[in-house]
């Protein structure tokens, strides 16, 4: 089809099952009836996706900076130390 704006040729692309026409010249995008809704729905699904579980950590244990604590974790601080990470300092 022809671009309604600049009358150049439009090319059809398929993105996640949604047909999109894009103009080769001005890059404008033409959406058929219902296509915007399909895209919005796909985006909402993506945004709501649960973050992937952490992969079985290749970089474990994590690196410390040059000034890092040795040992890397004071076990006895656990409850107290992490719980202070809940407040602005």
């Amino acid at each position, binding site marked *: 089809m022809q671009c309604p704006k600049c009358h150049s040729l439009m090319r059809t692309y398929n993105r996640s099952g949604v047909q999109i026409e894009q103009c080769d010249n001005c890059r404008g995008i033409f959406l058929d009836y219902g296509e915007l809704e399909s895209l919005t729905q796909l985006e909402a699904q993506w945004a709501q996706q649960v973050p*992937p579980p952490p992969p079985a950590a290749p970089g474990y244990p994590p690196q410390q*900076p040059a000034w*890092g604590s040795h040992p890397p974790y004071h076990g006895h601080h656990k409850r*107290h130390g*992490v719980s202070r*990470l809940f407040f602005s*300092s």
Partner: protein
Amino acid sequence: MGAGGHDAEVLSEARTDHALISGLVGRARDIAGVAGRQWDVLNDRTGLVVRVDDVVVKAHRNGTDAAILAARLRIATYLEAQRILLQPVRSREGRLLFEVEDRLVTIWPAGEPVRPDDVDAVPWEHAAHLLARLHTIPTRGRDVAGPLPPAGAPHRVARGVAGLGDGSASAEIRRAFATLPAWTYSAGDTPAGSGSVVHGDWHLGQLVWHGTARETPGWRLIDVDDLGIGAPAWDLARPAAWFAAGLLPPRDWGRLLTAYRAARGPAVPPEGDPWPALDAPARAFTVQSAAVAVARAREAGRPLDDVAIALVDACRRIANVALRPCGYGDQ
């Protein structure tokens, strides 16, 4: 809340400024339409925060700039559309910002935070995902219309160090402060290429579960007081500092970092050593947290606790590393 709440009429038992609390509860009734029978002071350190039924009313700290806060509230409205941050409650006339007893006040829906005594329940992956999405928001064009203020993290560092007194712990903290690059405590010196939208004061208390019929339920960030443009590494810097001080288990830090990378967050390179990117802001938050912990212990007439000692020890190591031949370079 609940058992810990107060009867709104019994203001004589308030822990902080009675008139201010009374005014905040009144605003919650007027603006948010809550009954306001129950209220509870959630925080009276960094601005007074009072929960009234299903809303939270915040009196921002003295000296807060109204124009800058208004700009931050505007970003919050945009970020709620992205399901990243809670958006403030509007009055019927569409206002977001109010005044009570000469303090700037905002009203928010109440979310459920992770409890500090339930550290195993921390949703590290969700937190990482939210931060990565915040950091990848385009800062130009129509998405975040209008100018964005700089993030408040450097100001927070400067304020922390300004409260230091005398004594050996304060001296250790000052030595560590002397290693910091200027951009970590002076917003005007922000390096080029650090233009992400950042929270600026991110920690585990800034994450709540929010679910209502109107909005999509999920984890959200809260608190816009330091929101703005800055280096995205600021938002990983406090947990990074806690990890480096031996206060956060490597497993937890690893979960946050791995998930942030998986979500393509821009604060650290996708793989390899994250510390070249994190080091300066993590040192800055170590200095700032140590300074505040020492100042609070002094005000309360208490000795330093385990956490304060671990942070001051980290400051000593920071200063000692700086004395080595390779030091911190340009970081």
